[in-house]
């Protein structure tokens, strides 16, 4: 079971980032990965390809939907949009992630232990 993309990320992190990005605006795959890379200041080492299996999973769970359209650079691309179910999932994931992060931060915080 090697999902090379998730080697450095915890499971579900990529999906969460995709959902968050799509919440701002519908995007196609290439724009999506560029946006994530740019926003993270290239701190996250993501294989661009790993985005696609994650998108397929989200499609299957009907958290996003895809439609063919024309990109700003005049290409035929598949544009992904967040569904209401996806928005709800994102909310839940983010709040649970924040709790987890808080926990980790507290454990890691120097001097308090």
């Amino acid at each position, binding site marked *: 079971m090697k999902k090379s993309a998730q080697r450095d990320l915890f499971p579900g992190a990529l999906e969460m980032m995709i959902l968050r990005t799509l919440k701002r605006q519908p995007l196609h795959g290439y724009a999506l990965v560029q946006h994530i890379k740019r926003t993270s200041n290239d701190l996250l080492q993501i294989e661009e390809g790993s985005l696609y*299996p994650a998108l397929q999973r989200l499609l299957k769970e009907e958290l996003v939907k895809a439609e063919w359209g024309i990109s700003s*650079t005049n290409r035929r691309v598949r544009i992904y949009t967040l569904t209401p179910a996806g928005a709800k999932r994102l909310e839940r994931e983010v709040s649970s992630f924040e709790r987890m992060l808080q926990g980790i931060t507290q454990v890691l915080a120097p001097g308090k232990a």
Partner: protein
Amino acid sequence: MNWLQQLFSRRGQYEALSEEIQAHLDEKVEELVAGGMSREDANHVARREFGNPALTEEDGREVWRWASIEDFFTDIHHGWRSLRHNPVFTVVGLLTIAIGIGANAAVFSVVNSVLLKPLNYPHSEQLVSLHQIAPGAAGLADFENGLLLSGSMYFTYAKHNRAFQALGTWDTGVANVTGLAEPEQVRGIGVSDGLLQALAVPPAVGRWFTAEDQDPHGPQRVILSDGYWRRHFGADRSVIGRNLMVDSHSREIVGVMPPGFRVANEDFDVMVPLALDRAKLILAGFGLHGIARLKPGVTMAQANADIIRMLPIWMDSWSNGPGSNPHWYERWKITPQLRPLKQEVVGNVSDVLWVVMGTLGLVMLIACANVTNLLLVRIEARQQELAVRAALGAAWGRIVRGLLVESTMLGLLGGALGAVLASAGVHFLVAMGPANLPRLQEISLDGRTLAFTLILSVLSGLLFGLIPALKYAGPRSSLELRSAGRTFSVSKERHRARNLLVIGQVAMALVLLVSAGLMIRTFQALRTVEPGFTDAAHLQLMRISIPESLVAQPEMVTRTQNAILDKLAAIPGVKSVGFVNVMPMEGFESGWDEIYAEDKNYAEAIPSRCAFSNMVRRDFCRLPERAWSPDATSPGAISTNSARW
């Protein structure tokens, strides 16, 4: 998107994915080239940053795959191939299973049709047989049919009951139909008013009998069975209103019953009204079968109580003639024992059928054990293959599943073959028509039998697949790679499963053998029972009935019978002929007569002198060697069963 749509849209998803990935790479390259990189370098960088496109595509597709189902189809494919490549094993296994399942399915279809399915009447659970016993009647009425109803009883019950929606009686007999083509003796049934109403099966054509048709002095009517109607009238609907000569009475045809209609288990050709004459009825004459339909909500106990309430009314309302005491029957202790009509129809055959079903269950287990053994032997030969698969990383659960799929396929194929065998067997059984199997015509392979066969096939497939699968495809099977390759010696442990199976098989076979032996002995004992006559092979039986209307005076009966006997005796090869009312070993029909000794005085008519009588004429007693004394042939003499006097 539900799973079905997903299944069909999958190919579209795959194509979209590869197009998308290509577009992604193209866009990346364009961007890099626009940034001043050479196209070659750009290609290289795009690839590096993307990762492996083929793997990505594969991972993406994986999301849409319905893994378990597809693996299942793979297993079926493997199983089929493996069965095909071992034809000898497959054929032997299939035949064993087919015979086992076929026999079970055939008997189940009989059990289902005879015992489980409700009778062919609307709301048949409301129908009861008016069964009653008379323990005080000193052996007169304690046989299978109990005490049948007399005509007066029927009228009393029909008039005074509170428990039944409808109530009627019936009796069978033979009837002579003349005037069509050749004179024909047909199966007749007489029914009282209320019987058809109780059974509630509407006629296919025409109408039921009404109360008016039961008038002994009114116009005479007849209803035909579907079979008779088709045979003799070509299913002509205009037959209603035409006349049929039944026992030399012209009867108007008023209706035709639908196919498969029977009264209890009695098939008939023509149905006539019993037309009981109230004026001539006495208390006695217990010869009618009663059927009633319970009112909704009335229990069997309440209905029994209702009959008990009516018995004194019966004795008060009728008599056995002047000077007789109607309450004499209190000594008989007549007790109603109503029972479901189905029980009456099925009779005591249910025990036999369940025994046969159980026996065949054992046969099925033996068949399963046999196939298990075959599979065990075969799987030993496949050790190497399984070990290699395990070594290559196949999960052992997956291997077990593969083996189970294979054995279940064997079971299902065997089951299909078995269903064919069962169908042939059931047809054979119905064609053979054993006399003592009720509801014979209803026996067929229906949906329930097929479901039973299917379940049996799957269960047996799993049963005989599970033992070898668990034994050899367990987690330790990788160890066998070495040993199985090098040596074929079979360890003691491996023998144990097979030994256990053989022990079980022999034990079950022994049980079957003993039971079969006992049955054969019973059968043999039955064959050696003295029937009261000898040389059965040379006895020919012929039934005739002379309609009362043809021979009004008793002398005419004697003369007609003599004429018939003379003509029969004149046939070359006939040594002697005789008449009898009831054949030896034919059971008792109710022929009851009061018998008095001439030299004794009787204070009152004592019906306990009632005897089952049998009329015998002419040479009859030369046929049986010892049952009747020879002087019975002279007129006016009787011979009796010595035990009664």
